[in-house]
């Protein structure tokens, strides 16, 4: 036993080790790694209690949960909640709001960090580049509540700076915060301000790996800056763009609960309400647990399908994909 379990070799793939391991019985390996398994306990309990028990709680979507009966004794209703949800006019409102926000996000926000990274990559003065990077990463660490609060303070019609400004020059005020027309542009602008700078990191990291010799060779071949960007820089970040696009597709029904919740009010609800805020309003504030669980489940199933689907597509087109 002694020689079979020199534990120092753990973690290294050595042919002798695997040979010896085959001789080890399961029980022996369990005993040898006793402390490792003990260390696993807190983390395993965490995933069990806070991740897997809620997954099993999804069954609520197929029951009619009554608080006085509890989880076990409440009646099964099958797909009743889903049927009610799909027949509800709210369903189309939620789907439209969610998809439109995602679409605007994809068109206006998604390319922004790519363009910004390309611009940054063209800066030769490394001090200037680093200073700009330091500045544009700041908003990422500011909480959504602060972002929304600042928007309120600046945009309110009661003494907000932007409206005071508008009033001085045009004599009119715009009610940005409760006008349905301004809701989507505001959300996208906030997202661009908060995450555009941070989003460049992953592209800049990919670009840092590009061999300078490639550019030098291109110069020798007579390529100008645009050609260099087109033929060297962009292909270098192509797979990163595709992976991020896959991730974005997977979260197409996720519009960021906090942001929407904070910016939404009774007046812009018709364009603001999305799946997550709807689940919150019905489940947490009104106590319709089963119905809101069904809505949440619908959203996650579409989400997983989207991730797996786009990943499959990416592989089909010769990209490496995520899984």
């Amino acid at each position: 036993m002694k020689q079979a379990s020199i534990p120092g070799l753990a973690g290294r793939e050595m042919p002798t080790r695997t040979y010896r391991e085959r001789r080890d019985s399961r029980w022996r390996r369990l005993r040898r790694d006793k402390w490792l398994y003990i260390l696993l306990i807190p983390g395993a309990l965490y995933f069990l209690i806070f991740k897997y028990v809620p997954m099993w709680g999804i069954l609520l979507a197929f029951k009619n949960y009554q608080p006085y009966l509890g989880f076990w004794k409440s009646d099964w209703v099958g797909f009743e909640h889903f049927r009610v949800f799909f027949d509800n006019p709210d369903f189309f409102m939620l789907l439209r709001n969610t998809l439109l926000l995602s679409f605007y996000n994809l068109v206006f926000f998604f390319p922004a960090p790519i363009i910004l990274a390309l611009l940054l990559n063209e800066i030769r003065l490394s001090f200037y580049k680093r200073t700009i990077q330091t500045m544009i990463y700041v908003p990422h660490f500011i909480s959504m509540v602060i972002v929304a609060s600042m928007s309120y303070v600046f945009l309110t019609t009661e003494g907000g700076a932007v409206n005071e400004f508008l009033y001085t020059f045009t004599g009119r005020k715009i009610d940005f915060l409760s006008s349905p027309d301004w809701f989507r542009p505001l959300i996208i602008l906030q997202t661009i301000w908060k995450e555009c700078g941070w989003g460049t990191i992953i592209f800049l990291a990919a670009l840092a790996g590009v061999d300078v010799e490639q550019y030098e060779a291109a110069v020798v071949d007579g390529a100008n800056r645009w050609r260099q960007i087109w033929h060297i820089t962009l292909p270098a970040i192509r797979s990163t763009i595709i992976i991020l696009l896959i991730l974005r597709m997977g979260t197409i029904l996720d519009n960021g609960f906090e942001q929407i919740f904070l910016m939404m009010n009774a007046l812009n609800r018709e364009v603001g309400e999305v799946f997550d805020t709807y689940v919150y309003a019905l489940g947490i504030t009104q106590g319709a647990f089963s119905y809101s669980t069904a809505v949440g489940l619908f959203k996650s199933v579409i989400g997983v399908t989207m991730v797996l689907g786009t990943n499959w597509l990416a592989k089909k087109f010769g990209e490496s994909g995520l899984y």
Partner: protein
Amino acid sequence: MAKRYKNAGETVFDVFNYVILGIIGVAALLPFLFVVAGSFATDAEITKRAVFLIPSTISLDAYRFIFSTDTIMRSIGVSVYVTVLGTLVNLFFTVTMAYPMAKRNLMGRNLILNLIIFTMLFGGGMIPTYLVIRELHLLDTLGSLILPGAISAFNLIIVKNFFQELPLEMEEAARIDGCTELGLLWRIVLPLSKPVLATFTLFYAVGHWNNFFSALLYINDPEKWPLQVMLRQIVMLSQAAAGDISTMDPGFVQPPEQSIKMAVIVVGTLPIMCVYPFLQKHFAKGVMLGSIKG
């Protein structure tokens, strides 16, 4: 690389590029600078000028006012408590799980890893999680702000990958000297991982300080509201009073509402600004480590 300069068109592009990026950099900070300036302003100034970066008179009245009652102070206390304790819990759970998971020949490792990755793809959702918290009697306790997010699966996998890449020579030497598995983690692995742990300490801490969602869901008692929830009540809903004029000296003029709100925003952002230089030093590393591999 100056020899890459070819023609006038490219020089024009370069000048343009420097200017544009300069503007973008300033735009990232500008709203916050306006808020800081506005928080020091007096009533007269706010009605005179809508936007300004340097107030003509610096008044601390807004700050004196918001700290005149313990509403803000108490919520700062809650946030600090949750941030400190929560981050310690995060580190303990993440490290104790990442260490065994980094051992390639641990029996059942792949199964556990796949179960963890699955939680990144699919989850029970808001309501089932809420009900679990309720059944555990964690509603309206600060535990509800700490335990449900004890591990971020993403961070766990990055730390695990980092442990996996550590050189094993020292580990082997320590084992031969009779070091136990726990001693090894404590004396060899953790000291070697200081930079990566510093990164995640900061990430987790910022996450706790900025967390609004959990408190919105799980905390109803205003006494236990963290600063982010209090901020929303004061600035966005105007439902909570930030200060109390009756506790101030006679003759104290109530500062303009805009200044009070801006002062509260500054207080909520200040801690982030204080750790930002450290974040800056570490986060690029954190993102680079982010490449997930089995």
